[in-house]
């Protein structure tokens, strides 16, 4: 197909002021075949993403495209910029708002959780974060990957793939709640079976649902 294997690997940006938690998160995502970048603050995260302070001029768009991030996972309680502040800044940015954001916290505060979800966080995980939590994130990361892949496909080919790419863009907006619940159930049962599976990416693809989505994704991700 001409697509490099790296195109299909997810890149996660993890933000946490705790050294231990950064090491853990990094391992959790690496073991899930993701590329990981860790930073210890919200401001460093924004810097990495190409979004400077409001007082400074923004980086040019061509620079931003070099860094493709499929997911941002951030701790809530951090000195300076909290995870919530970071979430807001990302959602306010036209270039970054489509990147799924996940919040982590060691405190179970319902009002905090709903505030984050309302602001656009895809998930809110209680620490310590586990592999089963990370497995839930595949569909969210797939959304961004397939959007950019389908754009590449649309440029190369003409008829059918274009229809596919349009439908993929629509799928995530259809009852996302149900989608993620079903996926979680599937992944829970699969995760146990797939612990020793060396070909983790293949195992992850099998976890996608609903069926319509699975068909489209497998045709795109075939290398």
């Amino acid at each position, binding site marked *: 197909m001409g697509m490099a294997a790296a195109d299909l690997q997810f890149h996660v940006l993890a933000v946490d002021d*705790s*050294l*231990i*938690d950064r*090491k*853990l998160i990094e*391992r*959790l995502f690496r*073991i899930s075949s993701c590329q990981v970048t860790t930073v210890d603050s919200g401001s460093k995260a924004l810097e990495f993403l190409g979004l400077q302070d409001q007082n400074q001029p923004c980086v040019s768009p061509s620079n931003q495209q070099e860094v493709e991030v499929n997911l941002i996972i951030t701790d809530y*309680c951090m000195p300076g910029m909290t995870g919530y502040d970071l979430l807001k800044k990302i959602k306010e940015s036209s270039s970054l708002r489509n990147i799924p954001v996940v919040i982590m916290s*060691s405190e179970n505060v319902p009002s905090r959780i709903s505030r984050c979800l309302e602001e656009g966080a895809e998930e809110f995980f209680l*620490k*310590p974060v*586990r*592999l089963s939590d990370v497995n839930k994130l595949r569909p969210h990361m797939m959304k961004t990957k397939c959007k950019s892949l389908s754009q590449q496909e649309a440029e190369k080919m003409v008829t059918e793939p274009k229809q596919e790419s349009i439908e993929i863009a629509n799928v995530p907006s259809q009852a996302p709640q149900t989608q993620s619940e079903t996926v979680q159930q599937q992944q829970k049962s699969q995760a146990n079976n797939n*612990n020793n599976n060396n070909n983790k990416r293949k195992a992850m693809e099998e976890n996608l649902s609903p069926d319509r989505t699975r068909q489209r994704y497998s045709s795109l991700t075939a290398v």
Partner: protein
Amino acid sequence: MENQKQRQAAYLRRSLFDQGYVDDQFIHLEELQDDANPNFVEEVVNLFYTDSARLIRNIELALENGPYDFTRLDNMMYQFKGSSSSIGAKRVKRQCCQFQEYCIAKNIEGCKNTFQGVKQEHATLKTKLESYFQMAREGSLYV
């Protein structure tokens, strides 16, 4: 075929759980180990002890003289508790929670006493984990 050291390592590991030193987060860490990363748990634990030494020192300094900033003490302990929780340090975590309760109650004596407990559990766990990791390593050499 298990050797003596492997059996001892398994015993040490079992007692870490039975005596409540570690909780199931420790198992989740073990699940992150593989052939390419066979010492991940030990690496995380070592990182914890290096990193937490700093936190402990800061709390100690803050407890030395008044006026006591309970919010700051609570925040520092929150960080320390978070790291302890991440490695599954059950007993340490319990002491941390108690310390935080004394912070909320602005009870400095309670804080000071509990902090001794935090340090003690922190040190005891270190010894136990070191023994376990050493035995496990020695046991694996004979495989």
